[in-house]
């Protein structure tokens, strides 16, 4: 599912393998040095903890591939969550959730149109929506909304065997999303646009429409993440999701995506998500004190990308 260079298979496999190795090393270290890492409970935690960042990272990757960026995802998570929770009193739960996801699609669409149709810088457009959508979440409801119906919790807490349903949804997004980017004309166009938009335009492909599509996918993912998060926490807060965009972008870039566009892989982005979630989990399991956790988290991220770089160079 490497997006950039589908054909340079052997080289790509090497990089992926090296990255995989890194993750395996982290897992092995965790399993050997802590008692609790390999427990069923902890693995379930891990699976749950990767849902939000995973969904956001996939949407972010699609936007980054076009050479853009979407800073608004954290705010969209808050908006879609609180909207859904607010609607539960008047709509059936699945319908309320659908509306929440659709609101994310809507914000993505607006971002996309401003970037593609009006040629505005993605960073400023989505920074502005970060602010505006957050404001709208508070305008919709200043106070958190906690639906009473326990069915509201289902999406976020139901298990399918050993695996949380929400994690399965995220896996599905990565699978379908991987196929989208590697095996559909629209997906390939998105990747190509980030490489050289003018060439893509000359090939008769509607660049604007594909850029809009990319932001819409990101909005969709953020909307979905917001609904799942509200369901998981059981309460929707308008203040949730601050700085989520940074983790999502970090996952993509740790996975080797280039913010200049045209370069990035679905599989490696998933690896990036894993790395970030593992770091948090391990620091918790080791009982590292909070502020030192932050210090270490940054250092580990640097170490990871340094290790990756070495692998790249060798591969």
């Amino acid at each position: 599912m490497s997006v950039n260079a589908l054909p340079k298979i052997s080289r790509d496999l090497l990089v992926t393998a090296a990255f995989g190795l890194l993750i395996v090393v982290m897992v092995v270290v965790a399993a050997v040095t802590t008692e609790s890492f390999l427990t069923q409970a902890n693995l379930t935690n891990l699976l749950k903890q990767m849902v939000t960042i995973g969904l956001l990272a996939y949407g972010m990757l699609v936007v980054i591939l076009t050479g853009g960026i979407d800073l608004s995802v954290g705010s969209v998570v808050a908006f879609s969550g609180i909207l859904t929770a607010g609607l539960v009193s008047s709509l059936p739960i699945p319908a309320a959730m659908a509306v929440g996801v659709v609101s994310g699609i809507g914000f993505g669409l607006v971002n996309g149109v401003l970037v593609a149709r009006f040629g505005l810088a993605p960073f400023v457009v989505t920074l502005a929506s970060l602010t505006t959508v957050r404001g709208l979440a508070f305008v919709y409801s200043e106070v958190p909304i906690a639906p009473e119906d326990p069915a509201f919790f289902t999406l976020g807490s139901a298990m399918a065997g050993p695996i949380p349903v929400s994690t399965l949804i995220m896996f599905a997004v990565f699978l379908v999303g991987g196929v989208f980017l590697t095996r559909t004309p629209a997906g390939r166009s998105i990747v190509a646009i980030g490489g050289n938009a003018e060439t893509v335009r000359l090939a008769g492909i509607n660049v604007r429409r594909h850029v809009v599509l990319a932001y819409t996918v990101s909005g969709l993912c953020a909307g979905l993440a917001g609904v799942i998060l509200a369901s998981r926490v059981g309460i929707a807060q308008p203040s949730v999701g601050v700085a989520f965009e940074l983790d999502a972008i970090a996952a993509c870039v740790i996975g080797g995506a280039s913010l200049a566009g045209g370069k990035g892989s679905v599989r490696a982005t998933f690896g990036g998500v894993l790395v970030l979630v593992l770091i948090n989990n391990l620091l918790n399991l080791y009982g590292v004190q909070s502020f030192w956790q932050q210090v270490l988290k940054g250092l580990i991220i640097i170490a990871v990308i340094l290790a990756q770089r070495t692998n790249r160079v060798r591969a």
Partner: protein
Amino acid sequence: SSGGSAEPATQADSGYTIGVANFMLSGPYFSGMDKAIAAQAQKKGNVEIISTDANGDAAKLAGNVEDLLTKNVDAVIISGGPLESAPAVLNSIKAAGKPVVLVDRKFQTGEYTSWIGPDNEAIGRQNGEYLSTALPDGGKVAIIKGGPADNSIGLARTNGVKSVLSADSKFTLVEAPDFGNWGSDGGLTVMESLLATNKDIKAVFCENDAMCLGAQRAIADAGLSDGIIIAGVDGQAEALKAILDGTNYKVTGLNDADIIGAKGLDRAVEILGGAANVEKDTVVPSPMVTKDNAAQFQNPDGSF
């Protein structure tokens, strides 16, 4: 200790492990709370603390609690900070059959075992009453809020002040349109904006001391220290000092993280020990601190 089964007794021998789930530590009050819990555990001797920080992310709080339950802690203390509620977290703790003690923040929904914290509205009322006596001629009172009303703690404090002052026609209340975000830098800029539009402010109330300290600088820079008095909440060390020094910082309501944290830990141990009839909700009194009594609350070893 008297437990129904033999299990609690064996645990008592080897001590307890108590998990602390902080919603966010990046605020002196919250980190003070975390330290107070740890200090009390140290004092007890047989209690081990595992502390986590969700960095203000509700999903991460859920994950952290799950991590704690993974480590099989005996009880969980949640310092929910500005988080209004976390039903799923409470559910998962309940499902694991562990007691949960809330400190400072009482969640609006979900089942918990016990809560220990202040009565924020009472603190606000206390401030309102102080201001109404200190300003017999009344006047304009500015209110600086920390953040949106999804944090009901601040709202309760402001409502307390309002309940007193808006009943009195001598007073006009001006609420700053912008939030101070609970920090001194935010308090400073919000106060600067307020002073640009309202020169005739007589007093300012902030939802916490940190913002008051910033507001005090803005007032000093504008050369209005003689004309505007300040009322805050929390009992932050710098605020106590300013009050004691006789500046225009006149009053705060003590919201003592040390006491609440210590009591929270005690409560958890009490429950684990199987004590019957533990109190469900405990309000820790928040005495009004003025120049007269500030010295007695100053605590050089305090964590906050």
